[in-house]
């Protein structure tokens, strides 16, 4: 039996903000691009994307300047202003995404044409960085589960491994060994199938700017930001828990799961509070970044202090 499963946090069609009315964002973005205010987007703003708002949040979205000007993307430098400045060398189009490993249907996707065929959703999610700051970002994308289903993973596939582009010509930061390149991340199969997990191809109604992980990136909002790997070239289904970059570099500080958890401190700083970009005072960090209702069941019975 096939039916369209809609989680209860999905907005009904009628409640979704008509596209274009939302903040008048097209005009705002276009105006900013014209005024040369968009970092790293001096030539032209990325192409607009049609989408339907399916997930709202009763919190104010972080400004576009901050979302596109304050990034951790070490492939373009270690300073948070570096990606906006240095990511002009990335060529997000054409882009090939290879889906393979333990699957029935290995896929080689041309991201541009894949995007044009999909019906895209806009979802406003919190993003909590492991460093203790957070944003609210209107992503445009589609459920990761759709890609998983398309590849038809074998029953032995228990994990999904994601790999970022590894081309020093496009990513100058790769010349410096800040991490073991290429950047790799991973999810357990049930996490990948969770309806909250999406592959984002845009934000604020347009294709992703390079510094935000163009042309396609993961967004798993209940986990620390570094799990949401950017500029993905490969998705592989594997049997064992894959090695992931931050976990490898400092296993005591960055766990494989890295679910947002105010009760488990980073060894060097507290995770109990966070600073929302645009605010001066700290606010409490929510378990699973406020998405416990949708994801906590996946971790029932696990000691989250051990599997942090």
């Amino acid at each position, binding site marked *: 039996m096939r039916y369209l499963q809609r989680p209860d946090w999905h907005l009904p069609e009628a409640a979704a903000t008509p596209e274009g009315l939302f903040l008048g964002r097209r005009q705002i973005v276009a105006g900013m691009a014209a005024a040369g205010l968009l970092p790293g987007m001096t030539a032209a703003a990325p192409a607009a994307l049609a989408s339907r708002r399916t997930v709202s949040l009763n919190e104010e979205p*972080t400004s576009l*300047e*901050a979302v596109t*000007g304050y990034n951790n993307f070490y492939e373009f430098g270690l300073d*948070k202003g570096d990606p906006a400045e240095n990511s002009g060398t990335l060529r997000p189009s054409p882009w090939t995404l290879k889906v393979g490993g333990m699957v029935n249907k290995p896929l080689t996707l041309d991201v541009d044409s894949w995007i044009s065929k999909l019906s895209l959703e806009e979802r406003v999610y919190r993003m909590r960085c492991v460093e203790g700051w957070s944003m609210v970002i209107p992503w445009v994308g589609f459920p990761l589960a759709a890609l998983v289903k398309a590849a038809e993973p074998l029953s032995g596939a228990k994990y999904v491994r994601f790999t970022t582009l590894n081309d020093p010509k496009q990513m100058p930061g790769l010349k410096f060994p800040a991490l073991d390149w290429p950047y790799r991340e991973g999810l357990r199969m049930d996490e990948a199938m969770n309806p909250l997990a999406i592959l984002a191809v845009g934000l604020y109604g347009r294709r992703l700017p390079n510094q935000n992980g163009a042309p396609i990136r993961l967004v798993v909002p209940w986990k620390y930001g570094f799990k949401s790997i950017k500029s993905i070239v490969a998705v592989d289904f594997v049997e064992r828990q894959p090695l992931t970059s931050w976990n490898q*570099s*400092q296993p005591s500080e960055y766990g494989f799961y890295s679910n947002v958890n105010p009760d488990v401190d980073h060894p*060097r700083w507290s995770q109990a509070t966070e600073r929302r970009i645009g605010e001066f005072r700290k606010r409490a960090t929510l378990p699973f970044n406020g998405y416990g209702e949708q994801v906590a069941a996946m971790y029932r019975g696990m000691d989250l202090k051990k599997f942090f």
Partner: protein
Amino acid sequence: MNAPPRWLKPVVHLLAALPALWLLWAWGDLLFLNPASMQLSAEPVAYTHNLLGLTALRCLLACLAVTPVFKLSGWTPVMSLRRMLGLWAFAYAVAHLLFYMAMELDFSLTLLLKEVAKRQFILFGMLALLSMLPLALTSTRAAIKRLGGRAWQRLHRLVYLAGLAAAVHFILRVKGFQLEPWVYLVVLVLLLAIRLLPNRKRASRAAAQPA
């Protein structure tokens, strides 16, 4: 000792004050004129905290560079900068701590002690600051007289500890492997190593003695 040129101290004071002046201006701009300004990055609190700490470390290294510069160049006036650079380093370090206490700990001493006990990098930061405290307190001419030159000098060797602790504090703080904090440590080690070279005058005098 030759009198230092008149411009020297004011120029160095101005250079040392620039980061603080810039922060004041940028915060004024952010709070009263341009709330969307990204001058202090998207996270002005973290940016300010980092810049205060970094400037403290830079002033400390500049202070520790005075003796080597004198040793290598023989330019006496540079010695007149040592105390002021040390005091600037201390002032920035205090501002760094106060800003941290204000923004992260609500000025709670209990919380501060907990953090120091729990987090190695904060322990090193406190060690650096606390080893500078007696130096700042005894930085006056009167204090030198009271302590006697020798004891004063011995006490002020604490500055080496402050430098090393501050550099380690920075190394332990960053995420992943980053070059920048190591550069500061290498510069510091070089500045300390130059002190081990034989003194110019003594060396030349020794050379002049008949074998």
